[in-house]
């Protein structure tokens, strides 16, 4: 399957793996790239040296393109930005702000830059400063989220820019990918679906939570603090939401979630930890390999689009 996104990135399928902190290390990134998508390393709050090591490990395992997600609030963001240029990482996605100040450096190293955005104004700005594409991420996504749904955000971003748009948030199968294409996206980014893969180096308890999750299990904490985060519900979210309702202070709330993602991903503590996942977790019922996941989603997307063309009869 070819789109402007596959041409831009030199990949076989326009499926990008989300650069999730703690989850997206070289194991997952290399597996996704080998399977024909774009594997990503999630720099999250990690150090520059960790990122460099991960990049080298991916390069050992695949010759195909891959990328790194740089979370711009990372205290070492400047250092990591430089490492990405030195290592000539093929693709960089960015979150939590604007990567403008790194653009020149990255472009000079031949890096394709794809900011993750959640508003029309940001998308236009990113196009102006030379972004190669944008990821438009709806509120269905896991982790830190914006307000708009994918359904509403993607077409507005598609109308606002001429660079390719990659849809994220609420995508995990052929139906949801076909829908994203209908909205004008030319690729998709998936996070939760890739956590539930054999290759993801994530605690089994975390994966089990996603497989077990039902449609009603998604919660958003931190709306009152201005930093909403989507996770699966557990005793931690119950306590958090109760405190939030009672008007607890930011510090009090922070104490509940500090280090929470690490707890869940690494230690498998899914009672006190932050089990970040998108709303789509309710639709994920089994652990697949990255190859199965990507292969299935592409063939389902094709079938879906053809089925709709056949199933609808237009008035003469």
């Amino acid at each position: 399957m070819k789109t402007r996104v596959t041409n831009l990135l030199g990949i076989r399928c326009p499926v990008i793996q989300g650069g999730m902190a703690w989850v997206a290390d070289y194991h997952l990134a290399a597996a996704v790239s080998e399977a024909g998508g774009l594997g990503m390393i999630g720099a999250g709050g990690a150090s520059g040296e960790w990122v460099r090591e991960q990049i080298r490990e991916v390069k050992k395992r695949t010759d195909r393109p891959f990328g790194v997600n740089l979370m711009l609030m990372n205290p070492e963001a400047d250092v990591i930005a430089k490492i990405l240029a030195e290592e000539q990482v093929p693709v960089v996605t960015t979150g939590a702000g604007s990567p403008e100040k790194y653009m020149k450096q990255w472009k000079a190293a031949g890096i394709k830059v794809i900011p993750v955005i959640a508003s029309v104004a940001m998308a236009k700005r990113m196009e102006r400063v030379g972004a190669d594409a944008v990821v438009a991420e709806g509120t269905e996504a896991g982790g830190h989220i914006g307000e708009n749904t994918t359904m509403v955000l993607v077409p507005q971003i598609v109308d606002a820019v001429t660079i390719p748009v990659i849809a994220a948030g609420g995508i995990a199968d052929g139906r949801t990918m076909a829908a994203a294409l209908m909205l004008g996206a030319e690729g998709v980014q998936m996070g939760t679906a890739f956590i539930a893969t054999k290759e993801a180096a994530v605690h089994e308890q975390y994966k089990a939570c996603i497989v077990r999750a039902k449609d009603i299990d998604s919660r958003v904490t931190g709306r009152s603090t201005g930093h909403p985060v989507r996770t699966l519900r557990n005793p931690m979210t119950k306590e958090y939401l109760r405190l939030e309702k009672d008007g607890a202070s930011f510090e009090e709330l922070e104490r509940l979630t500090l280090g929470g993602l690490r707890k869940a991903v690494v230690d498998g503590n899914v009672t006190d930890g932050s089990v970040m996942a998108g709303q789509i977790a309710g639709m994920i019922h089994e652990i697949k390999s990255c190859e199965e996941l990507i292969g299935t989603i592409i063939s389902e997307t094709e079938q879906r689009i053809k089925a709709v063309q056949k199933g609808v009869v237009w008035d003469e």
Partner: protein
Amino acid sequence: MLEKVKEITAEALGVETETLTAETSFKEDLGADSLDLFEMVMMFEEEFGQEIPSEDLEKLTTIGAVVEYLEAAK
């Protein structure tokens, strides 16, 4: 310039122009988040025909700071 900056702020954040002064802080007084700030900056750029690099955003905390910044950059 001050009046125009107030007008744009009022439009972007859905507040009354009359309640705004040079000292009004976007984050503290008006509760603007990062998306709001980028929205506003894009509107300032369009209105005054000059680009504002993202590195400068953190300086632009109040309406007065925006006016000063735009005057200096002229």
